[in-house]
């Protein structure tokens, strides 16, 4: 690091970056505004769609609420219960009440967890962020390392092994991967705990959570690794063959400098976009992994709220997930703008 900042190139590099930010500030603002204009009505419409679909679905919220007790309830009692619980309101009324509460900052009450939806988020969101964040970071790091190593020698033994393994892992459904890793690492080898975020009855300690995090995070990272890895490998392979890299080699730069200064910067931009575009897959993967590992996160609550037809929680989760995907793709495009000067903002 010191060697670089002391060199003359560093002073040269500082200026273009500032100019880049100044040039792109307006473009970024425009991009964000454009996305907001599309995104906010889309989220509103989507939340309405959740209520409409739930209403049209063959599932009766009262039956979900009563479970086995439904069998012991008479028709009159069902009517009275539906009225008292608010299940008999038309879907648009329920949706409108939900939107009104939302605008007042009230996310509603989750019946399946018997607490306010905002508390469900407060209790579970950190766990989901920890798991998905760790998994995504792990996947990106591993993709960069393996992808770069494979891309530097396309067609080599390492490249063939990495590419084939990547395709194979991509073909395995996440829940199979999750159940398989539980069986092998937790039950047979006993290297890691089977499920949860802490030993039963123990408080959540940093060491304990780290130990419980390894298996689900590695599993989730594995489900996300193949596409990131293959993208990096392709980008690196292309960059390695480019004139800029050949010129750098010709100037006698060390291989490490060539990779760090010339290959990686060009390969990072596609990775940023693809990470943004693949966020929905991370969310889906997290739902399955959290369910199998009994991770106390928000993704597990998606399953619970859907099974129980817990509308306020289901709508909030759907809208929040969609918002994450929209914001993720905005951030990815913004990163692309900053990373690659050739990109315009016509999107």
């Amino acid at each position, binding site marked *: 690091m010191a060697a670089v900042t002391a060199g003359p190139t560093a002073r040269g590099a500082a200026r273009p970056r500032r100019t880049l930010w100044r040039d792109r500030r307006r473009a970024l603002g425009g991009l964000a505004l454009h996305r907001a204009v599309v995104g906010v009505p889309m989220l509103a419409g989507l939340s309405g769609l959740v209520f409409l679909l739930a209403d049209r679905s063959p599932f009766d919220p009262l*039956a979900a609420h009563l479970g086995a007790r439904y069998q012991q*309830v008479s028709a009159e009692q069902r009517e009275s219960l539906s009225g008292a619980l608010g299940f008999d309101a038309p879907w648009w009324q329920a949706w409108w009440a939900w939107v009104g509460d939302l605008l007042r900052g009230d996310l509603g009450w989750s*019946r399946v967890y018997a607490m306010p939806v905002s508390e469900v988020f407060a209790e*579970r969101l950190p*766990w989901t962020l920890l798991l998905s964040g760790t998994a995504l970071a792990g996947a990106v790091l591993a993709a*960069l390392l393996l992808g770069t190593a494979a891309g530097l020698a396309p067609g080599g033994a390492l490249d063939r092994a990495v590419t084939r393994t990547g395709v194979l892992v991509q073909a395995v459904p996440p829940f199979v991967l999750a159940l398989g890793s539980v069986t092998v690492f937790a039950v047979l080898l006993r290297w890691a705990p089977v499920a949860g975020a802490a030993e039963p*009855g123990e408080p959540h300690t940093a060491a304990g959570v780290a130990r419980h995090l390894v298996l689900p995070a590695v599993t989730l990272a594995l489900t996300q690794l193949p596409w990131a890895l293959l993208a990096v490998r392709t980008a690196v392979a292309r960059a390695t063959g480019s004139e800029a890299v050949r010129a750098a080699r010709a100037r006698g730069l060390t291989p490490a400098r060539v990779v*760090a200064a010339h290959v990686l*910067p060009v390969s990072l931009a596609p990775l940023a976009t693809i990470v943004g575009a693949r966020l929905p897959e991370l969310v889906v993967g997290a739902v399955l992994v959290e369910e199998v590992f009994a991770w106390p996160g928000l993704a*597990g609550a998606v399953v619970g709220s859907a099974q129980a037809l817990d509308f306020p929680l289901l709508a909030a989760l759907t809208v929040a997930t969609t918002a994450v995907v929209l914001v993720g793709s905005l951030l990815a495009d913004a990163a692309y703008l900053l990373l690659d000067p050739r990109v315009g903002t016509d999107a």
Partner: protein
Amino acid sequence: MTRPVPTRTLLTGTALVAALALTSCAGPPAAGPSGSPTRIVLADAQPLGGYDPVDGYGELGVSPVFEGLLRPESTGDDRLPDLAPALAAAPPEPNGDSTVWDVELRTDVVFSDGSALDADDVVATYSAVLDPATASEIAASYSMIESVTATGDHSVRFTLHHPYYAFPARMSLGITPEEEITPGPAADSGRNRRPVGTGPYVLAELDAEQAVFEANPHYHGTAPQVTELVTLYLPDDNTRAQRMRAGGVDGTVLPPTAAATFAGADGVDVLSVRTADWRGLSLPAENAFASDGAARLAMNLAVDRDGIIEHVLAGHGRPAHTPVAEVYGEAHEPEAVFDHDPDEAARLLDGAGWREGPDGIRERDGDRAAFTLYYLASDSLRRDLATAFAAEMLPLGIEVDVRGGTWDDMGSHTADAAILLGGGDKPYDLDTQVYATLHTREEGTPTFENPGDLAVPGVDEALEDARRSPDAAERAELYREVQRAYVEHPTYVFLAFADHTYVSAENDWDSGPLVLEPHAHGVSWGPWWNLAGWRR
């Protein structure tokens, strides 16, 4: 574009993560619990929270946190438990025709929040259940109550709409302090996550993963020796089984087939507990075949109950001929059974004019011996039972079209289709076990009780007389009469009482007798139903 710094940070970061991953994998091996641990960790399939007695939590008097006026006291799962005073100071006193019940309360009981128990708390809890605004899920079970009033600081009077000797079975409802009763639906109440009761344990901690119950310092009874109970929520059967195998969990509830994989495993006991939880099918009144009494009797004779139990329930069940199980002792009629006799069934059908048609299915005057059998699509056990029943009827020339559905779908087919039902949700008295199931439909009868509204001669009268009779021997005779009448003119095909299966880590605790279980199961039942009574 020279930016080497991020890359180097990335590389260092990767090395760190890899090192962390390697070290954290080397955790302590999970050790199987042994001896008599004072903390018991159980994995349940039921979600955590929902600890509100107004909405039915611990309704039968089995809960770590709550107590009712009465509690079940068991000598084993092979007979009905006695209902013994818990918060009541003495057994409840009925008037001459069982329409007014007086209960004296104990005066030395304090809730876990420090407030003393008095009659107002009992009145408030029962009134909340009866109040339509709370939308209590169990209100239907208490519809016989006309009023509940405090007749003193520690005495309560229940006035009923009609004579009802079985009322003590409705006195195990958990009592919550009057101050905790709030307006609005019970499902939206804070009681679900902050239960305040008089039981041996208090809920000390509740998060997304687990509920921790600790000994209640205010408990009026003998302090429990198991001082901590941890309940985990693991909805997936496989995950619970794996967690049990990996150790660290003292017990869990599993379906019979999954529990069977633990048979012979070191340090793990597999337990099968008797229940009054029957499975069977109602028969449609608006179907030419099923509305014929001879056809209903023939189906009851043709079905191989033992075979179904062996194959569908992995042997964990007992044949059901009527909704009255052997565990009801004196009131059970051992003669009221259907012999497995397909030949006699065929003769009965021939005699009633149901002759085999060209496609092998019997017919009479243009009506086919065929009907639809609905089951709850989300319940795989009911699906398997329905399929097994249909397979046994086909050789006899009866076509049963098996179809999955939601409660909603089935509700609109109660008269024209058979429905695979489960029962025994309130088994601690024969009235709640059989009255609505066998009596012809009355105002307020639940949709799925006798859905076909078929009548058995003499049964309505016997059930009503039993409800009024104060004499236990006389009631037992009336219930035996009900069973004898039923097997002459069956209106359902009862198949089996399903045992509930649990796996439990071996320990040195004396956990006392098991208790006959209702339809509901989970880790509040099994060997842990009376955890506070475990002794070294």
